[in-house]
């Protein structure tokens, strides 16, 4: 007995393209992995993908650099990304829910302005935001990076789409008939239904803030408050007459993506739910 499955053509071409794509994405990561194990002398002299001998000395050097300021940067980045993404998710979900489920005067205007906001890249806003926050006396504080990260038009847009698809109007109606107040509806009905969407927004924002360079670069003058991106950049751009600390930068870059990978692995479940959910509903 043979159970004959439907024989499909293997599709050599698509497979090859996908393999190429995977290679394209993974090769640089492999390079970072290999390069982070090399000492300063080995970095440019040995084969690009052969591991070196200096991984632990690199980490030790990095930890010693300016009395361990690298770990301060790591903690700063975690603060900016963690708190910023949480606040941003909260604001986005509230705004998205309101825009999706309530009819009120100016709703479409607000929504259209938000859509317009998506089209303005965040880098363009960095300088005006700096000038504004400097007037408010908040430049060079943690708030200077946190506040602009909170409002993110794309997340609000995402939350609105998600809320209108995931929360049936009938459910809200039923709740209202049963005598639930709007706060209670939000807590008991809307938020649980939007949870996968919230995780998506949180991850989006977390990664965006973690990788953000220009905003903290302009906002912060004091390197005690730098996030990793700006901090590592100071190691790279040490002025024309100083050798760039390549090996420390590469090791630092490797260490800086580990938390991101960990976050993705733990939240992968929700992320997948959402992607498939979205593909069907919208």
């Amino acid at each position, binding site marked *: 007995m043979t159970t004959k499955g439907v024989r499909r053509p293997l599709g050599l071409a698509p497979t090859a393209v996908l393999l190429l794509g995977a290679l394209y994405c993974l090769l640089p990561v492999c390079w970072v992995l290999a390069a982070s194990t090399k000492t300063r002398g080995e970095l440019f002299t040995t084969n690009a993908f052969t591991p070196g001998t200096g991984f632990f000395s690199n980490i030790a050097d990095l930890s010693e650099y300016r009395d361990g300021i690298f770990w301060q940067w790591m903690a700063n980045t975690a603060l900016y990304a963690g708190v910023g993404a949480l606040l941003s998710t909260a604001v986005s979900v509230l705004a998205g829910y309101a825009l999706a489920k309530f009819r009120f005067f100016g709703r479409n205007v607000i929504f259209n302005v938000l859509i317009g906001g998506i089209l303005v890249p965040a880098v363009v806003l960095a300088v005006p935001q700096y000038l504004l926050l*400097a007037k408010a006396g908040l430049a060079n504080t943690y708030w200077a990076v946190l506040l602009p990260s909170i409002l993110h038009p794309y997340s609000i847009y995402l939350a609105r789409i998600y809320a209108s698809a995931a929360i049936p109007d009938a459910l809200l109606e039923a709740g209202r008939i049963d005598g639930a107040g709007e706060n209670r509806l939000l807590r008991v009905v809307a938020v649980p239904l939007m949870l996968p969407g919230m995780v998506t927004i949180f991850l989006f924002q977390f990664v965006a803030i973690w990788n953000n360079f220009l905003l903290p670069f302009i906002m912060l*003058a004091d390197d005690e408050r730098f996030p990793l991106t700006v901090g590592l950049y100071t190691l790279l751009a040490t*002025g024309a007459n100083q050798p760039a600390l390549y090996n420390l930068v590469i090791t630092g870059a490797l260490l800086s993506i580990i938390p991101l990978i960990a976050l993705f692995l733990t939240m992968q479940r929700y992320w997948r739910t959402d992607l498939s959910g979205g593909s069907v509903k919208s």
Partner: protein
Amino acid sequence: MRTKRLRMVMSAMLVGALAAGCSGGGQEQTPQETGPVELTFWTWAPNMDKIAAVWNTAHPDIKVTVSKQAGGDEAAAKFLTAAKAGNAPDLVQAEYQMLPSFVAAEAVADIKGEVAGVRDQFSDGIWNLVTLGTDGVYGLPQDSGPMMFYYRTDLFTKYGIAVPKTWDEYAAAARTVHAKDKSVYLGGFSSKDPGWFAGLSQQAGAQWWSITGEAWKVGINDDATKKVADFWGGLAKDGVVDTQAPWTPEWNAALNGGKILSWASAVWAPGVLSSNAPDGKGKWAIAPLPQWSAGENYSGFWGGSSIAIAEGSKHKQAAAQFASWLNTDAKALDLLIKEAAIYPAAKSGQALMTTAPEYFTNQADFWQQATNIAGTARGFTFGPNVNVAYSAYKDAFDKALQNKSSFTDALGAMHDATVADMKKSGFTLAS
């Protein structure tokens, strides 16, 4: 891609800040300081916080806080933005070529009165870089980058060439070397390092910018610079100099592996060589740059920076006091050399450099040579939009290398782009 966009944004910011610069800076100024003063200092020099700590212990009335910054063009854009927002630090490290844009934006103060006593500490060539050829003084020179010729002694012997005394000899040697081994070059032309090209043009006697009265004159395509561009254009066309982008892993490997035999670089090169070409230790030596005519003795500057005081600073006098100490006091200069690893601009600082860099153990008189060469270096006045000229250099010469087209035309394009930008920004240009 990402850096390209970043650069574009940065340039846009810089231009914006320049255009808006005409609205004056802070007016408050306390000429006489009383009580403890707090100063902030933006710099990218390593270990500057340790040097400031030495000052702070000795001067309890003036406390300097160092904020370590990233260097390069972005540092200038950041300072201009901060100055615009009234948020500038009291003291800022400024590369010489960026200082004029700070002055044009009225972001740095004229400290002529505060630093009158230290003029003698600096050579005329370097002092011009902080006066911009005017009566004012817009900063104190910190480090300088006189250019010199670095070469591999062992490989020069192997290929049977002598250290070139003139650029003609350099060209001949470049052909000889490349004819003997196609994978080896005497040296390279860099379309990525406008500062390098500016230094070589200074050596040839170029004057890219000058001020007469209120008007700027741009001379990027003057005869001296044309001579330099033509020279490298000819060698690049024949393929006898290396034209790959420097500062890349490939370039490092070529430098380390003996595929590039020499480098027309600046006094700070030992740091680069020791980190990027570790295998060459003890095999490199320095000589003056090849000259344009036999018997001449000139060099140019590549890199170097000054310490300027923000126009918005409320403690200009205290800041000037610190800047003077940092760049002329014997103890401070010693710290700058040992902790920040710079080549000081002050003459007395240069005299302190005695032990040759570890990488140059074979050349015991490294610093004597360097000091002699430094004395022959001549600079020129930088203009208010060096960043525009520099990116035009990269664009034009990249293209010329790719299309194997004329370097003279590339220089013309660079000149035109610079002039057009100055007109657009509202500078008066001399005809």
